[in-house]
């Protein structure tokens, strides 16, 4: 065989090797790439059986599943996204976009800054009236209530918002109206927005980042310390201290790059460096560790993730959007309907409710409404909860692998150490909650 033929065979063999790489590269260290970032609906592979084959459900699910779940899907998606970003300045992120100078935003933050999501003073007044009732009732029960207002990135960095998004009224917004009402009704609260704006250029390190949507890691440390001081003063207690002995200066990571990460690019968009305090948590010995129930969005969620709850009793819970339940004493998150929420409330010493500006319109995701109904009228379950649980029960009776596969149920059962029936309930709670059915 002459050398030309050998060379051509080598080329052709290289082609076969390249197109089969997702199969043979699984174990190769050099071919391990970062996973795809962000939250997305991942197609569940239905069980392979005769019924699913002849209905073509298995084939459809495998074709969809394999796009995002083959070994190299992450790098392929990053290549495509990098090309779109580098050549056309396009980013692919749900509800997000790139502003001026590569500052990343989510649409909701701009909507709220320009008052386009304003729900009206009457609704907010009604809401704050109920907060007042809850606050006063909890005080009678020797519990403290604190409302926390986090700033939004739209308010903090309005200068990077593209011109086409700038319309509305920045004076008539949910934030300003709520602020006025919180003061009017004497709600115990911390409003971090004025502090952030005042210290935007004075702060030693940035309080918001270019590629992140939340307050920076440095800002979180300041916020945690502030809230703890507020709790200590308000309750005359001595909480374990959160401090830091050192600050690392690094490229944006964790929540500081949350939107940047979700762009799924090859090269990061931000070349700036940010501060990462090395937090030190004082031991609980001789300190007060109240039971805290915190209800909030991802802004308060980032505090929870960073160790804010290490100052409190380990049974304290964080209710993320009043739906997911997290606690240092649970190995994994629960759905709120997996536990008796009112029992948790009754056992808590301090109740914290908070959110960023764009989530004011959500009005605590029915938390205040449910607590109000309980304390005012003795209602232990809302109409929504009753109907939701009825739907869960009826869905449990549905069969068919395209609805819920045996492998999904077994995974939960093994993971949470519960029976298959309980696992089915848990799966349906989440499936219905996230709109997957």
């Amino acid at each position: 065989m002459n050398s030309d033929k050998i060379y051509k065979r080598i080329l052709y063999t290289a082609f076969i090797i390249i197109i089969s790489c997702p199969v043979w590269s699984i174990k190769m260290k050099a071919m391990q790439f970062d996973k795809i970032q962000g939250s997305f609906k991942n197609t569940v592979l239905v069980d392979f059986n005769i019924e699913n084959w002849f209905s073509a459900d298995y084939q459809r699910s495998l074709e969809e599943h394999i796009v995002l779940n083959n070994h190299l899907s992450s790098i392929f998606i990053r290549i495509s996204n990098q090309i779109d970003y580098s050549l056309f300045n396009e980013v692919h992120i749900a509800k997000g976009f790139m502003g001026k100078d590569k500052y990343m935003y989510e649409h909701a933050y701009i909507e709220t800054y320009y008052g386009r999501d304003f729900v009206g003073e009457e609704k907010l007044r009604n809401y704050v009236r109920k907060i007042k009732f809850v606050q006063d009732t909890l005080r009678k029960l020797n519990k403290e209530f604190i409302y926390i207002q986090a700033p939004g990135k739209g308010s903090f960095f309005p200068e990077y918002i593209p011109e086409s998004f700038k319309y509305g009224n920045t004076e008539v917004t949910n934030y300003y109206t709520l602020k006025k009402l919180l003061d009017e009704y004497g709600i115990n609260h911390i409003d971090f927005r004025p502090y952030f704006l005042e210290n935007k250029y004075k702060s030693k390190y940035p309080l918001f980042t270019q590629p992140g949507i939340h307050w920076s890691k440095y800002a979180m440390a300041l916020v945690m310390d502030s809230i703890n001081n507020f709790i200590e003063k308000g309750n005359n207690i001595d909480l374990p201290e959160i401090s830091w002995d050192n600050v690392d200066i690094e490229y944006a990571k964790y929540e500081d790059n949350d939107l940047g990460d979700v762009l799924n690019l090859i090269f990061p968009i931000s070349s700036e460096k940010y501060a990462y305090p090395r937090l030190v948590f004082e031991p609980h010995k001789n300190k007060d560790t109240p039971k805290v129930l915190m209800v909030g969005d991802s802004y308060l969620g980032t505090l929870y993730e960073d160790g804010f709850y290490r100052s409190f009793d380990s049974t304290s819970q964080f209710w993320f959007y009043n739906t997911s339940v997290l606690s240092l004493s649970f190995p994994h998150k629960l759905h709120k309907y997996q536990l008796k929420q009112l029992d948790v409330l009754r056992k808590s010493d301090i109740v914290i409710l908070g959110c960023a500006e764009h989530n004011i319109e959500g009005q605590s995701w029915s938390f205040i409404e449910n607590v109000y109904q309980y304390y005012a009228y003795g209602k232990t379950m809302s109409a929504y909860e009753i109907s939701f649980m009825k739907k869960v029960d009826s869905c449990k009776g549905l069969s068919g692998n395209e609805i819920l596969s045996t492998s999904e149920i077994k995974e939960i059962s093994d993971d949470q150490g519960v029976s298959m029936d309980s696992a089915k309930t848990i799966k349906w709670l989440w499936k219905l909650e996230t709109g997957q059915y």
Partner: protein
Amino acid sequence: MVFSSILFLLYFLPIFLITYYVTPARFKNVVILVFSIFFYAWGAPKFVFVILGTTFFDFYVVRLMCNSKTSIQKKTFLIISICINLGLLCYFKYSNFFIDNVNYVLSSLGLEYIQWVKVILPIGISFYTFETITYVMDTYRGIHKPLTNVWDYQVYIMLFPKLIAGPIIRYHDLADQIEPVSRTKKSTIDDKLLGFYRFAIGLSKKVIIANQIGIFADEILSKNSADLNSGEAWLGIIAYTFQIYFDFSGYSDMAIGIAKMIGFQFPENFNNPYTSTSITDFWRRWHISVSSWMKNYLYIPLGGNKVATKGRLYFNLWLVFLISGLWHGASWNFVIWGVYHGTFLILERQFLLQLYEKMGQWIRILITFIIVAIGWVFFRLEDFGSACRFIQKLFEFNFVAIDIEARVVCVLIIATIFSFLTATSFGKKVQDYFYFDRYGNVKHTIVFLLLILLLILDVSLISAFGFNPFIYFRF
């Protein structure tokens, strides 16, 4: 399973090619058949039994036809075979259309509807029934001997590169390639490499051009015509014109490429149709396998060009195009599309071609392109009323400035270049360089690296298509 899917590109194709190459020559057709059946069953798990059953039956009917002693017997078996094949096509593709029209008439007369459960159209039926007809006709006419082995016939029909979207390969074009040992001996490493190149080019046409431009076309064409201005309407239909060409020709390229990789030589299906200087020229360049089929198995049996009168000639042309339109889809819009092209063909024969001769090449190309683009309106907008309103919008000439994304502009430019390039002598040289000229090692290396990069880009675009993650789910 489509060629431009991750499952096909990164799993099915490499597994098939590796299995094919390691299998001894005399068993290679078994590999083709098994993978082809799997390929078809993947998308049509129930209908695969119908196609296997009818091809089995058809093979033996044709064998009986070839062994017949009298011409009446022969003709009888011919008719049986054609009836089976056309019957299948008519039932699965046209029965819904037929019943809908009958019910329309009945309801107009105030009579009761016919109750009918809609039939699902099996994928690829229009293509392989035409191929089975070429088999029976070519053997009937003595153009080629029939196959002796039913499995070879299954290979001919089920050969997956062409099974679901063509090209329609006439039996005698493939007959001498079915025998695996001789096919393997004739197949060279150059064929395999050129096959890969062709496949990669086809995939890029589909993914980089057709898919991207298709999003833009859909955005415009899904709007109500009343909400469009003329500029948008023209952009929309031009985008669709490019989309349909690059999608279809891309798929044909992939089919031809895969076939080449396993030793088959498929005939070309497209030849730069938008460089056509008349509709007559267009139909020599667009979906050549279908026009060739129509010519050999419909137009010529009707008399072709050798009929007694011009009237009869024009009628034959018109009928062929009407049927061609109907073959593309079971809807009056497709019929109208076919008649539209047939009408222009007749007009060209009458006087238009003589008129075109007085014009420059580029004017003729532009006129033909516009005629074809307008015809695509009926193809794309399947509701006749919507199609007419859209065409009206095209000729209102109320142009307003439109904001188009940079990416769309980029793809439109690429599509335009590649659609019209070969109308220039430079373009012809480029085409010859890639498709026809000899490949030395240096050329192989450059083209290989370029197309590997394109392949990676294609897979990346397919993987990322429509992928817009949230930063987090609320729960």
